[in-house]
Structure formats: C-alpha cells, structure tokens
C-alpha cells in the first residue's frame, strides 16, 4: 500500500524547491496546485454535464441534489482523511454507518426520542459510531493488528450486529422532532448540506490548525520520529479511529434524515467510495499528507459523475466502464497538472 510513495520515489523524486525568491510559489505548489488539478477534473466533468444535460445539469436545484448526495459520503470522508493521513485505513465505515442508522432507529430509541426529543437519536448514532471507531483504534493501536484486517473484521461484525438488531427489517423513522430538525432546507439549502459544510470546516481547522492535526500528519509521515518526539502515538491512533467513527455517526444521522429509515443495508459498499474520494483528493495512502479540500473535491467529483450519468440516462454497465476510465483519467490529469508545478 505504500505504493504511492514508492512509485513516486524512483519516478519523481520528492519535490524540492529553490531557496530564495520562488518561496511564495513554492508554498503554493504544495496543496494548492495539487488541488488545482482536481478542480480542473471537476470542471471538465461539469462541462460535459452542461454540454450533454444543459439546463437540467446547470441549475441550482441540480447543484443542491449533487451536494445532498455528496453530504453523507462527504462527512465520512473527512474522518477517513484523518485515518489515511496516519497511514491507516478504515474499511468498516460503510457497515458501521448501517449499524448507527439501525441503532438510532430501533423502536426503543424512537420511543425515547418521542419523549425527549431528537437528541436521543443523534446521541445514539454518534455514540455507536464513536464506540465502533474506538474499538477499531484499540485493536489497531494496542493490539498491533494491521488496520486493513482489523477494520475488515469490524466491517463483517458490524453488519452482522446491525442485522441482528434490525432483525433484517427496514426501520422507518417516525419521530417528528427528528424529521423537523434534519429534513428540509435552511436558507434554501438542505440541512444535511449545512452539516456537511460544518464538518468540512471543523475538519479543516482540526487538521491544519490544531496540535491534533499536526500529530496526525507527523504520525503518518514518520511514526517512529513522532514517537521519539514525545507524541503518544498509540493513544493518538485510537483517537483518530474514534474520530472517523464519530463522523460515521454523523453520517448515520444524515442518512436517517435523508432516507427516513434505518437499515442494516445502509452504507453497503460505501467504504471503497469513501476511500477512493479521499485518495483521489490527494491524501497519500501511505500517510503523512492529508488534504480536506482535496477530499471535498474528490467527493464532489464522484457525486457529479453519478449525476451526469443519470442525466444522460446511460446504461448502467456502460456507466461502470466509463466510471473506471474516468477515475484513471482524473488521477492522470491531476498528476500532469501538478507535475510542472514541482519544477516551478
């Protein structure tokens, strides 16, 4: 998996920038220019959308639809960005999402929510997500189990637990206060899009402006150096997986709001989409570099792609072939655009 770092190693040595004057540009050449490539990919996609879909694509409503669709995956991608930045991975986000929606919509939770308000359901989803994340974190950090395997185990187990709790039924949410709080629009924008925006902003500050974020990057860049600098690496790893679980919990609340139902099938196979969005966004799978903005653009690319496909009424098999090709093309495009900046 440290593929990325490696294949960049021999092929394109780590960017080095000249000393004096070009400093400003050199700074820019980091995240910003890498994101530029992505933005170009997204714009190209939008152009295709506009050319083929016209008004149906380029409308405010459609923008809202794309954003709403991006929201649930988007929120989880923010947590995943932290995990991947440490050099880890979390395959369990999809099934834990299912588990949170199920747990937060059981009869008893809904009954309590009927009495004490929507906060009960929200707390339930957040706590379940957080707990699952912490369990992942403990097994990975203190049990020394590879993240891939530990979270794969959680994937399987959480799905089973969700099925057990839901008894394989779809649980319809019937708590007016919850629906009132999370469904519908606020200032013309769906509430879940607001939540997404809030999580993005919080995630950006957490990664870029706090010691937590700094530690996350340091651990991903060089865990041994981080440990010898006095960072409690294991405890931090646990927190990072906990954080990812928390964002899954938030995603669960949004999912409940959006679909109005809790089901163990929620979030099925979503993990690969989440990881793909983060990695296409420019966060290194090998750890040590994470970008929230990149992740958001990555999520938007995938959401827009689906939208363009459906607007064009594409056959689903053809959609898949095109999707595969476009993923590769987007990554290649991003590389080509970012590459010259290295030499600037």
């Amino acid at each position, binding site marked *: 998996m440290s593929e990325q770092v490696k294949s960049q190693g021999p092929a394109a*040595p780590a*960017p080095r*920038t000249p*000393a004096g004057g070009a*400093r400003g540009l050199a700074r820019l050449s980091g995240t910003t220019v890498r994101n530029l490539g992505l933005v170009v990919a997204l714009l190209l996609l939008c152009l295709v959308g506009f050319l083929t879909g016209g008004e149906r694509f380029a409308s405010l409503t459609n923008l809202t639809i794309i954003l709403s669709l991006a929201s649930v995956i988007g929120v989880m991608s923010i947590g995943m960005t932290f995990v991947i930045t440490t050099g880890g991975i979390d395959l369990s986000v999809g099934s834990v999402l299912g588990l949170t929606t199920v747990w937060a919509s059981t009869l008893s939770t809904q009954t309590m929510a009927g009495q004490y308000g929507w906060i009960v359901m929200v707390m339930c989803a957040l706590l379940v997500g957080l707990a699952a994340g912490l369990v992942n974190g403990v097994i990975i950090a203190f049990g020394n189990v590879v993240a891939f395997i530990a979270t794969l185990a959680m994937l399987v187990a959480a799905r089973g637990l969700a099925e057990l709790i839901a008894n394989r039924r779809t649980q319809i949410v019937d708590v007016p206060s919850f629906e009132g709080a999370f469904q519908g629009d606020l200032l013309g924008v769906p509430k879940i899009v607001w939540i997404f925006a809030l999580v993005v902003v919080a995630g950006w500050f957490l990664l870029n402006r706090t*010691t*937590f974020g700094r530690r996350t990057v340091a651990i991903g860049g060089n865990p041994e*150096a981080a440990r010898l600098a006095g*960072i409690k690496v294991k405890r931090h790893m646990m927190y990072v997986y906990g954080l990812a679980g928390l964002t899954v919990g938030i995603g669960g609340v949004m999912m409940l709001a959006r679909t109005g139902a809790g089901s163990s099938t929620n979030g099925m196979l979503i993990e690969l989409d989440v990881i793909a969005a983060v990695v296409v966004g420019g966060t290194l799978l090998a750890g040590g570099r994470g970008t929230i903005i990149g992740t958001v653009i990555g999520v938007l690319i995938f959401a827009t792609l689906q939208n363009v496909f459906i607007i064009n009424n594409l056959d689903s098999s053809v959609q898949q072939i095109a999707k595969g090709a476009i993923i590769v093309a987007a990554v290649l495009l991003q590389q080509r655009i970012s590459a010259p900046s*290295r030499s600037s």
Partner: protein
Amino acid sequence: MVIEDQAAPLLQMQGIVKHFPGAKALDGVDLDVLPGEVHCLLGQNGAGKSTLIKVLAGAHQPTAGTIRLHGEEIRIAHPVAALEHGIATMYQELDVVDGLTVAENIYLGHELASAGFTQRRAVAARTRALMQRLGHPEIGPHREVGTLSAAGKQIVSMARALSRDARVIVMDEPSAVLDSGEVDNLFRVVDELTAQGIAIIYISHRLEEIRRIGDRITVIKDGVTVSRNLDVATTPTADLIKLMTGKSVEHAFPDRPGVPGDAETRLEVSGLSLAGVFHDVSLRVRAGEIVGLAGLVGSGRSEILETIYGARRSSSGTVTLDGVTLRPGSVSGAVGAGIGLAPEERKSQGLVLDEPVYRNITLSSFARIARAGWLDETAEKAAAAEQAAALDLRPPDVNRAIRTLSGGNQQKAMLARWLVHGCKVLLLDEPTRGVDVGARSEIYALVRRLADAGTAVLVVSSEIPEVLGLADRVLVVSDGQVVREGPADSISEHDVLDMVMEGSVA
C-alpha cells in the same frame, strides 16, 4: 601541489551538469580517476557528491557532460550499463533489501540462475568467500539482512560491489556507520583492491580517513569542481576546508570551561538494564556538563540513550531528573520532564521529512506553543525561526520541507527542536554522522553553548576523537557495560581502543 596527469586516466567525467526540477545539483563537475588509486571526493553537505556518483552509476541521467572510460566516451543510460562498464557503487543511503538474505542481496540484479531458477548452492559458496575476504565470515549467506546492524549492512553493500567484476568502485561515505575497527578492516580491503589496479572513488567527511588512504583529492562546491587532483599528502587541511566551505573554519573543539564542583546533578541513572543488551549502567550528568559515551558499534550505547529517554522499557534501574524519578518506558513523560533526544538515524527516527522545517522544530513543544490544542502558526513559525537563526540554519527559510536540507542542517534542526522545548537534559546519538566539517564545528560549538547555559548533555559517538574532544567526562562502554569512567583529558584514543575489545559488527 597539483599532480600533473602522469598515467592515462581510467575514468574521466567532464562538465557534468545535473538539474533537478527546482534545483541545480551539478553545474559542471570534472573528475579524473587513475587506475589503482584512491580518489577522494570532498565537499560540503549538498555540494553534489552523491549526485555526481549517481550520474556515474546510471541512477541519474546528466543534463550535460561526457563520461570517458579508457578514453572512450560512454553513455550510462541505466544502472545496468554502469555495472557492465565495470563501475560498481556503494550508495550513501543503505541500499540493501531487509527481507532478503545476505546472498540474495549481494547477487540482486545479477543472480546466478539457470532458466530463472536461482542456484542457491553456488551463490552461498561465493557469498561465503566474499565475506571471508571482507573479514566477516560470521555473516552467513542465509542470514536475513534485516537482522544485521547498520555496519553489517554496509559490509553486505561492500560485498555486493566486490561481487561485480568492477574496475572502478565508488564508495559514498562508507565509514559513516562503521567504528574504527571496522574502518581499518575496510581500508585493508581497499588496499587489496587498489593493488589489483582497481580504482576507488572515496567520499567521506572525515579528513583523517582521507589522509590515511587517499591518493588524490577533487573538491566540489555548489555543484562545481573547485579544485582537482590535489595530492593528499601535501595539501594542508586548512586549505581543503577553505576550498570546501569557501571560508576558513576553525576545525577545533570548543574550550572546556570546566564544570563548577557545586553544579547540581541533573540526570542520574542508576542500575539501568535492558535485558540482553546492556546491564547495570549507572551514570550522572551535572548541569553544564557534557558526558561522552565511547565504545564500538553494537556495544549498546544507543540503547542506553533510548532507555534513559523511555523509548525502550528498562528491565530494571531508575532514571532521575533533578531528583524526580521518571516513569520507565514513557517518552512523553521524559519529554515532559525536560529530556530531549537527537536520535542516531536522523531521517528514520528524528524527522518527518515531508513536513516543513518549522513543524519539525516545534514537534515536541506543543505544550508551550499551543493554547488548548490550538496552534497559532505565526507564533509557531516565529519561535522556530528564532532558533533557526540562532543556529545559523541554512537556508534560514523554515517553510521548506526538511527533506531538502543538507544533513548538517537537518541535524541543526533536530537541536533546534530541543532548544524550542527548552530541555534540561540533551541526549545526542552520533550528532555529526554524515555532517561536513564546517557544520561539525558549528554543532560542537552549539553543544558547548547549551552546556554552558546549564543543560546536561550526554553524547554518543563512534568517532573517539570526537568524544574525547567534546566531552568533559567520558564513559567507555563495552558489551553493554561501562568499563571505565574518567575526565576526557585523562584518556587517550589509544586507551579507549584498548578497552573496547574487538567486537562483531553483526
């Protein structure tokens, strides 16, 4: 001083230019090497030595310039081409594969095979012969290289160069991870090789080594050859340093002001043991004192430092700082109490290479820089820049990725980390490994300044002169035990060597 070319050069590199995206590493380097000579390549960190030899090895393609072998122009398009021309290279960054065995590493890329199947018996036999020749029969062909020490890996790397039928062998700082005994061994092999007419290109920052085995010297500075074919025997050290650095550097250790008798004990280690590595180590370092740990590679000095620091959990014994006993096995506890460590392997243990300099400097000081977990980048950069300026970090820009700094400057950044943190005890493991002469003197001066300001310093170094020159007091470690302790000026290099018995590098 300059020897005229008497014999026809075996290898000639002319006007070599190498541009990297964003950096000009070489800007016209010339080098001629005669058969059977040891040709030394000198230059500061970042002068372009490694880049030059990578061009020669086919690992980099030059932007311009010609390479001649026996007067004939050749093109070295890839590493295989270099090997086919008889140019073998021991790279500066250890280039072995941990997961493969000694024999497999040596024959990697030119495996003895029939129809793709490796001939394990033949390979093993040849490997044994090579190891015998290198004086290390104890390193068996089937040993996994990951289990060898850095010195052992260096020997494997050497064996690999020998396994190729080479006319020119390039050695990029081979002695950096070797102790004096091993260096002697290396030089014995070098002598053997040159006697057969094989040319050696030798890179090192240790001038005394150059004096011992070198024939001629080429000095490069900022990617340009500033002087060629200097005679080793007749060129004064001061001239060499001037050529390399462009200025005169006092190549001497700072004065020892002497620790006042009433200075309080800062660090006290008593009865510290780590099962299987070292045993019952006791030492104390007073405020303002520099204590050196001398010993052979593999004698367990790094482990002593790491155990004091909490990076390894001691099996018994205590570490006290200013009278407070530290919790064993807790790095964050040690850092919080005021201990800092500049580890042996800067790149793998000390630095987050892709992060900017300032973030590497402040990595241990969040407690004092951040408010409730919130970082003020401006204040953070200012704090880092202040220390960078105090240490004369070059370039002084703290926003660069630390990867782009030279080895000496990376080491200064490590020290800056602990200056920002304001630690009371500083543990230094091989503080000048791979650092050029100019930067070395600066680091020595800096360490002494720190001590003068009241920091207790514990230094490990494999260069015995360095320990003796820098420290106030020296402990000699052999086989995981302190065998002698005394003021640095009462011990000679010879004494130290006598005390540490011949050990194995494996």
